[in-house]
C-alpha cells in the first residue's frame, strides 16, 4: 500500500527533480544563433515522471527490504524450471530451432541482417560472461578483442587474400593470445582497478587503430571485406546474408555448447570460486594465475570470432565501431541478462539489441535506457533478468 507519507515524500522528490533538471531540460540554448528556447512543458513531464518514479522506487525498495527480512529463498526462474521439465524441454527446443531455421526465409533480408547483429551479441555476451559473470573480472575493454577479430579478417584478407574460413581459427587464436597478453599485467589488480585498466587497454587499441595509418588505414577504415564463401563459391548479396546468418547460428550453437560444458567443468568451477573468494580459492589449491588467464583468453577468443563475423557481415570496418560504448553495451547484455547465466545472457542480447532496432523511436534513447537499466537492475535485481542456476546432482543413498 502507498501511504500518505509516501505520497507527500514523492511530491517533494518530484519538486526536487524539477529544480534539478530545470536548466538542462527547460532551457535550450543555441550559442551560434544566440537564441534561447524555454520549454516550460518539460516541467510538467519531469514532475509527473519524478513523482511516479519515486513512488515505484520506494515501493520496490520496501519490497526488497521485506524480502530480505523474511528470508524467502528466491525461486528458480521459470525458464529454468521449464527447461528442467522433460516433457516441456524437447518441444520447446524444437520450436526455438524451427523458428531460427525458418527465420531468414520468412522475414525479409533487413530482419535477417538485424538478427545476425543480435546473434553476434549473443556470442560476445557469452564470451564476456565467462570473464565477468563466471570469473568476476570486470573487463571494460572487451571490445578490443572484437576489434582484433574484425581487423584480423580485414587485414589478412586485404594483404594475403586469406578467406573467412581460414581467418576464423586464426583470429580465435589471436584473440586467445591477446587475451592472455592483457591478462598477464593485470593479474594482481582487483575489481575497480581492473575495470579502469581494461578500459584503458580498449581505448589504447582504438586510438592506435585510428592513428596508425599505414597499418589500419586510420579512421577511413577498411572497405570491401568479402563475405564468406561456400567452398570457393561466392553467393550473391541476398543469399550471402542468409549464409552468414546460418554461420552465426552455427557459431552461437557451438558457443552455447562449449560454454555450457565449461561452466560445469573443473575450469568453470574454478572461475566461480575465484569470483566468490580469491583467497579461499587459492587455499583450495587453485592456481589463480592460470585460472584468470584462461578466463581472459577464452573470453577474448569469442570476441575475436564475433569480430570476424562482424567484419564479414558489414564488409566495412573502421575504429568507430570499437569504442568503449560497445564494451559497455556488451556489459549491459551480461549484467541485465544475468551475470553467470548463459540463458540470461542470450535473452539479454536478444532483447537489448532487437528491441531498440525495431522501436526506432526508442533507438535514440537506447543508451539512456541502458544506463538507467544498469542502475535499476543493480539496485533491485543484481542477479539479472534470468539468474544463474547451478547444476544439481542426484545420488543414491549408500546403504551401510
Amino acid at each position, binding site marked *: 500500500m502507498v501511504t500518505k507519507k509516501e505520497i507527500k515524500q514523492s511530491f517533494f522528490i518530484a519538486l526536487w527533480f524539477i529544480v534539478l533538471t530545470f536548466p538542462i531540460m527547460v532551457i535550450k540554448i543555441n550559442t551560434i544563433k544566440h537564441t534561447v528556447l524555454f520549454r516550460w512543458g518539460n516541467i510538467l513531464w519531469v514532475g509527473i515522471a519524478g513523482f511516479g518514479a519515486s513512488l515505484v522506487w520506494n515501493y520496490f525498495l520496501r519490497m526488497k527490504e521485506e524480502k530480505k527480512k523474511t528470508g524467502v*529463498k528466491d525461486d528458480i526462474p521459470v525458464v529454468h524450471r521449464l527447461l528442467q521439465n522433460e516433457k516441456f524441454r524437447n518441444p520447446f527446443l524444437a520450436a526455438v530451432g524451427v523458428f531460427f531455421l525458418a527465420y531468414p526465409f520468412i522475414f525479409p533480408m533487413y530482419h535477417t541482417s538485424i538478427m545476425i547483429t543480435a546473434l553476434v551479441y549473443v556470442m560476445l555476451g557469452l564470451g564476456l560472461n565467462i570473464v565477468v559473470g563466471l570469473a568476476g573480472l570486470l573487463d571494460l575493454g572487451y571490445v578490443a578483442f572484437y576489434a582484433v577479430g574484425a581487423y584480423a579478417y580485414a587485414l589478412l584478407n586485404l594483404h594475403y587474400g586469406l578467406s573467412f574460413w581460414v581467418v576464423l581459427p586464426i583470429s580465435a587464436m589471436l584473440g586467445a593470445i591477446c587475451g592472455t597478453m592483457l591478462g598477464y599485467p593485470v593479474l594482481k589488480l582487483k575489481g575497480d582497478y581492473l575495470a579502469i585498466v581494461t578500459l584503458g587497454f580498449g581505448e589504447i587499441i582504438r586510438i592506435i587503430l585510428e592513428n596508425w595509418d599505414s597499418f589500419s588505414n586510420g579512421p577511413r577504415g577498411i572497405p570491401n571485406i568479402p563475405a564468406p564463401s561456400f567452398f570457393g563459391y561466392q553467393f550473391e548479396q541476398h543469399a550471402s546474408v542468409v549464409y552468414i546468418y546460418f554461420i552465426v547460428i552455427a557459431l552461437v550453437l557451438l558457443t552455447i555448447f*562449449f560454454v555450457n*560444458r*565449461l561452466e560445469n*567443468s*573443473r*575450469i*568453470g*568451477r*574454478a572461475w*566461480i*570460486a575465484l*569470483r*566468490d*573468494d580469491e*583467497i*579461499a*580459492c*587459492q*587455499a*583450495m*589449491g*587453485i*592456481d*589463480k594465475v592460470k585460472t584468470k588467464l*584462461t578466463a581472459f583468453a*577464452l573470453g577474448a577468443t569469442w570476441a575475436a570470432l564475433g569480430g570476424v563475423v562482424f567484419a564479414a557481415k558489414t564488409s566495412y570496418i573502421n575504429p568507430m565501431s570499437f569504442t568503449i560504448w560497445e564494451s559497455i553495451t556488451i556489459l549491459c547484455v551480461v549484467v541485465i541478462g544475468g551475470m*553467470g547465466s548463459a540463458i540470461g545472457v542470450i535473452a539479454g542480447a536478444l532483447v537489448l539489441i532487437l528491441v531498440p532496432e525495431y522501436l526506432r523511436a526508442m533507438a535514440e534513447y537506447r543508451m539512456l535506457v541502458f544506463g538507467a537499466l544498469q542502475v535499476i537492475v543493480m539496485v533491485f535485481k543484481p542477479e539479472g533478468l534470468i539468474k*544463474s542456476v*547451478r*547444476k*544439481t*546432482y542426484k*545420488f543414491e*543413498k*549408500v546403504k551401510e
Partner: protein
Amino acid sequence: MEPILNVKNLTMNFGGLKALDNVNIAVEKGQIAALIGPNGAGKTTFFNCITGIYEPSEGHVEITPPGKPTQRLNGLKTNIVAEKGLARTFQNIRLFEGMTVLENVMIGRHCRLKSGIISAMLRPSAQKDEEQKAVSDSYRILEKIGLDKYVNEMAVNLPYGAQRRLEIARALATDPFLLLLDEPAAGMNPQETKELDELIIWLRDNEDLSILLIEHDMKLVMSLSDNIHVVDYGRKIAEGTPREVKSNSDVIKAYLGDDSEDA
C-alpha cells in the same frame, strides 16, 4: 621420525610490528595439536605464513608428508602448499557463495584433477570418468561429514554450524595429510561443538590425518588435543600436554583477567 610439520624460528614482520617472533612448532604424525593464545597473539598469522598467504620474514617451514622426503614450504604459493597436502579452514567462514554444497567440495578436488580447457569443451571419456569420480568422491566426503542432506543446496543457505563443517569437508577434499583448522568451533552451540569434537577425533583415527587447530573454546581444546602450543604477543610461551599447559604459570599470566577466553 621427522615431524610432519616442522616450523623453525618463524618470524613475521609487518612494517615495524613483529606479529610472530621466533616461533618453533612441530606437529607429529597422527597428532591433534592445538595453537592457543589470547586474541591478537598471532595465531592466524601463523597459519597464513605456513599456507603461503604471507611470506614469512625469517625462519623455516618444513613438511615431511608420509612416505615422502622433507621439503621446504617457504615462499611457495598458496595453491602449491595446498597441493603438497596442507589444507585449511578459515576463521571467518569463506565458502563459495555462488555454488552448491557439492560444488564447494568439488573445488577442493580441483588440484587432484587434471582435465583442462580443451577436454572440458570436448569432454572425452577420460574427462567424463574423472568428473564422475570427482562427483562421487565429493559426495562420499559429504556423507562422512554428515552434510549429504544438503548436497544441492546453495552453500550460503546452510545453517551456521553446517557452514563450518562444510569448510572442513572442502579442505578434506584436497586429500591433505595435515588439516589446519582456524577456530572451527567459533559461534557453534554446545551440541554442534560436541559433534565437532567427535568429528575431529574421527578424522584423526579413520582418515589418517594430523590436525593443527586454533581454538578459543578451552574445553574443546583440552579434551581434544594431544599437544598444545601457546603463543602470546607473537612469541611461543609454552608447549605440552593439556595438563602441563593448564598448570604453566606463563600461560596463566597470559590469560589472566581475560575471562572470555575460557568457556
